[in-house]
């Protein structure tokens, strides 16, 4: 893979703390999110949802409806007008390969079954109050144990609620032998609670059917939606709503956070599309926060038994996990993918003789469980690091030294994983841990204030830069994961870059401009990044997710920029009567290396190209380059997180006192942006560690339906974070970026939970269920008290 030719351009923006180029409109209230879109004749939708966790829909009764509405679209019409939504990831023993919008049943409270359309949302909700859904109730199935019991089946033509099952890593025979040969083993049972993504902007869609074409269907269906993946939405609309793709346009306007939950088109959104097609009128639907907390796909909710085998000299030998994931009512597009990612990344930075997982995904009458920042790697990090800490405690050794002892070293790179045909792409894990030790050695001793203090270190290696498309079908993933960029330099030398990935806070408008500006010798302010419009931006089935945008999307931008730079240099060489390889770009000019007086403005070059004058042989007019980047391998960013917590044994409250991160994400395009991703990632690890939990009671009713019950971290819960960098460029990606957006969550969740366990070692065996709420911490300290 060709990397940047460092002599081609003299500008250096990559690596600089370039201030964000996109901020101003947002700061002054001029962001354009979905709900800011208005169209003539716009109507408003509300979703008819099940109030029962499980049942057969007998009727939708509108006989009491007095509120003026434009449409009530019921489930039978929806089923008749649609095809099932494809599921992209099919894992072993998975029968569910597609999901109809409605199959006669409801399987969680909030399951969408219809749409009401009225002049405004107030009236639409009034109409919901007058619409009665007659449901023949079936027993709720809540929790992994109830689901596995198979007493009530969510899909009665199947014999089990298990939705997928596989074994990963070393085979059982080999693993058993490794465990038998090891000096010691430990077994720990863990539960990770369910969480919700809670982007500050809820889901949203505006559908404009436009005018009918000659076949009566819309000439052009235009959709604005708060999405991470507009092309994925377009694919779903085409497949489900039975429309040809070329007549569908999906636009992602400004998006207020995604974190994984906006990576696909939801059933209720597709129902709104059907309603707009039926009415021939534009319709807007904005999810409210109750819906966001009960029907937007959720995450984690897994039960683990982890076995770890080790020798008394501290050598780690084997790690084995039995994992069950509560997938909720049905699979969304990535199915049990997060559990698969867990089993694939369980090994982490250590040398093992065996890494083995038995995994099952099971259905329950709860909200579908799907993508969220971390995507299983948060869980892998947590399980593994907790087990390693337990080994350190058993052996009475320093937990960081134990890690260093077992880490894969740089001379063992590229390191072949035991869990798949993947290799780590370079990195120095021992030094990461040593640097963390240096940071924490500088922490002042904690005060003697009656609280219990604990420190934990977690190190993770994150599969990022997803990924090689050719490998996807081998693991059951039915979509590709390459990226492309179309780059156009205008006749005045400014640049437009059309990219396949979307931005919802990551700062692509800045970081991609830095990447491109470096290759073209211009300033980032001269580069505009265009994203999220399927009419103009290149296809991306995956969108922004999986820590792939800068590595893969940015990789394609670099390739396109290098192609464009080559073209510019060739044209300039012709004009300056020099060799192409002797031309350098910088400060808006193309000049001959070593003789800066022989130069020409890049705008002149560009204009010449657009007019087609005196171009070198083999070059057509114009200045447009398109480059596709198909990653040859995954990238593997890694980091060590260390935190210190104080636990109040009387209240169970936990304060995070100190936090440090050593990060290696390869080439750092913009340190400020990367630090911001670490901050936000840690916050989304800390929340599930201490206070975020989706609770559904045994009758299937959700209990955490407002932000006063589902507690996301506030500022006072977040510590300041010290960050140090290592830089090991990936050998695979153009530019050497690895991608890291999700990693903060992996480290944050693990080290906060493990620090609480370290603070209370005598009851660590009772601190095995997250979040470690004050109630759970207190109960662990006072197990003898009845009804705590």
């Amino acid at each position: 893979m060709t990397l940047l030719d460092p002599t081609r351009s003299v500008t250096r923006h990559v690596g600089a703390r370039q201030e964000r180029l996109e901020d101003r409109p947002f700061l002054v209230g001029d962001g354009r999110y979905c709900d800011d879109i208005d169209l003539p004749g716009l109507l408003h939708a509300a979703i008819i949802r099940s109030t029962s966790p499980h049942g057969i829909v007998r009727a939708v009764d509108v006989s009491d409806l007095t509120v003026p509405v434009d449409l009530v679209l019921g489930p039978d019409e929806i089923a008749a007008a649609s095809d099932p939504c494809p599921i992209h990831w099919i894992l072993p023993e998975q029968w569910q390969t597609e999901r109809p919008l409605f199959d006669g049943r409801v399987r969680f409270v909030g399951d969408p079954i219809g749409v009401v359309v009225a002049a405004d949302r107030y009236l639409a909700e009034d109409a919901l109050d007058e619409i009665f859904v007659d449901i023949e109730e079936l027993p709720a199935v809540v929790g992994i144990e109830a689901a596995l019991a198979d007493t009530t089946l969510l899909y009665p033509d199947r014999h089990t609620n298990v939705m997928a099952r596989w074994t990963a890593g070393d085979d059982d025979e080999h693993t058993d032998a490794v465990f038998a040969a090891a000096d010691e083993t430990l077994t720990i049972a863990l539960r990770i609670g369910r969480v919700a993504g809670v982007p500050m902007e809820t889901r949203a869609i505006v559908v404009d059917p436009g005018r009918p074409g000659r076949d009566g269907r819309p000439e052009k269906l235009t959709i604005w939606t708060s999405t991470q993946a507009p092309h994925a939405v377009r694919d779903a609309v085409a497949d489900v709503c039975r429309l040809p793709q070329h007549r569908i346009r999906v636009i992602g306007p400004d998006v207020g956070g995604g974190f994984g939950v906006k990576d696909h088109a939801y059933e209720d959104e597709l129902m709104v599309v059907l309603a707009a097609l039926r009415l021939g009128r534009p319709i807007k639907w904005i999810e409210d926060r109750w819906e966001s907390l009960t029907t937007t796909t959720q995450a984690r909710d897994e039960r683990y038994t982890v076995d770890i085998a080790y020798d008394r000299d501290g050598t780690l030998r084997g790690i084995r996990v039995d994992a069950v994931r509560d997938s909720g009512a049905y699979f969304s597009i990535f199915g049990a993918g997060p559990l698969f990612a867990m089993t694939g990344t369980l090994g982490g930075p250590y040398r093992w003789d065996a890494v083995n997982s038995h995994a099952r995904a099971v259905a329950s009458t709860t909200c579908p469980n799907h993508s969220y920042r971390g995507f299983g790697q948060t869980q892998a990090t947590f399980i593994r690091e907790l087990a390693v800490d337990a080994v350190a405690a058993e052996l009475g050794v320093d937990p960081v030294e134990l890690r260093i002892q077992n880490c894969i070293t740089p001379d063992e790179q590229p390191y072949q994983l035991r869990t798949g045909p993947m290799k780590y792409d370079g990195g120095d894990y021992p030094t990461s841990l040593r640097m963390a030790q240096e940071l924490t050695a500088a922490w002042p001793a904690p005060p003697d204030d009656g609280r219990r203090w604990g420190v934990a270190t977690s190190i993770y290696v994150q599969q990022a830069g997803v990924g090689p498309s050719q490998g996807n079908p081998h693991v059951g993933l039915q979509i590709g994961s390459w990226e492309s960029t179309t780059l156009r330099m205008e006749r005045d030398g400014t640049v437009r870059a059309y990219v396949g990935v979307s931005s919802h806070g990551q700062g692509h408008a800045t970081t991609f401009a830095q990447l491109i500006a470096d290759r073209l010798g211009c300033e980032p302010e001269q580069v505009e990044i265009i994203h999220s419009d399927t009419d103009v931006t290149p296809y991306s089935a995956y969108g922004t997710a999986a820590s792939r945008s800068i590595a893969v999307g940015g990789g394609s931008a670099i390739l396109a920029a290098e192609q464009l730079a080559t073209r510019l240099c060739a044209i300039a060489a012709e004009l300056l009567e020099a060799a192409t390889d002797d031309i350098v770009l910088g400060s808006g000019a193309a000049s001959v290396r070593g003789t800066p007086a022989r130069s020409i403005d890049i705008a002149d070059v560009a204009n010449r190209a657009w007019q087609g004058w005196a171009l070198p042989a083999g070059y057509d007019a114009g200045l447009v380059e398109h480059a596709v980047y198909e990653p040859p391998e995954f990238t593997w960013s890694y980091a060590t997180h260390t935190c210190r917590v104080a636990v109040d044994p009387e209240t169970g409250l936990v304060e995070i006192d100190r936090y440090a991160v050593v990060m290696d994400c390869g080439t750092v395009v913009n340190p400020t942006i990367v630090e911001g991703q670490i901050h936000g990632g840690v916050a989304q690890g800390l929340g599930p560690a201490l206070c975020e939990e989706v609770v559904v009671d045994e009758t299937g009713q959700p209990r955490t339906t407002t932000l006063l019950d589902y507690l996301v971290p506030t500022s006072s819960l977040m510590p300041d974070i010290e960050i140090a960098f290592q830089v090991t460029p990936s050998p695979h990606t153009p530019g050497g970026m690895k991608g890291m957006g999700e990693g903060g969550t992996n480290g944050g969740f693990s080290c906060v939970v493990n620090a609480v366990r370290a603070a209370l070692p005598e009851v660590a065996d009772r601190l095995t269920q997250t979040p470690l709420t004050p109630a759970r911490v207190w109960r662990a300290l006072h197990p003898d008290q009845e009804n705590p």
Partner: protein
Amino acid sequence: MKPPPFAYADPETVTEVCDLLVDWGDDAALLAGGQSLVPLLNLRLARPGLVIDLGRVSGLDSITHVGGSAGSGELGRGERESGRGEGTAHVVRSGAGVGVTSLAAAHPASGVVEAIHWIGHPQIRARTTVGGTIAHADSAAELPAVLVALDGSVTLRSSTDERMVAARDWFDGPFSTTRQPTELVVAVDLPVPDGPSWWGEVARRRGDFALVGMFVSRGSDGWRVALSGVGPISVRASGCEAALDGGDLDAACVALDADLDPPEDLHAGSAHRRSIARQLLRQAVAELTPAVAA
């Protein structure tokens, strides 16, 4: 989550409010600050036929000075820290009536002020009214516990009558008071103790409803202890008070356990809440005892 349909009135006198209440009774909801009612409306958990907006009613909008000189509306940490042990300068937006009896500058009712300081966040607190909070009767809120501790009272007016209800007779269940549907809260009296007072609270996050909140004061008539978050209504821990009057803190903790029957909910269990209550009591007594000795 939009409110359901309701009729709306924004009268300008107490008399008009009472006349409306005669016609609408318990089908009317009184809108004071809105920080409790409007969330219920938005969830459609409250479906009143009429919302009576008290925002323009004269006679309910008095600003009350607690403890001395005038101050600004923001109850900031700086003000609170400077308020300990000195004449404080705080303004409480009274909305539907606060009558706080006169205070001596030496006893700045820091417990009352501190309780108010723990209400939500500044953006919530700026809209909170004492009358509205007392009428809403959320046992997890701070001011009901303060009212109960201080043996305060609530003044009610209807189109035919005015009466005063003692704190012990006011709260009769979760989110329930002995207010009749035709009555309006026009004043709340919080008799400030003639000794130091203290508020403490443990919450999951700052600004959340308390797991347990506690008001403690020690005056010439003895100790007063009341708690929020430990039952369907604010609890006056009279057994605990008696033990404190007897000078035995350990006995007071045991008595406190007996005074409480805390609920189990999403956020904490009952033994956990009891443990937090005991810890708060010990903190309160430690803080208030030196002041008395001096």
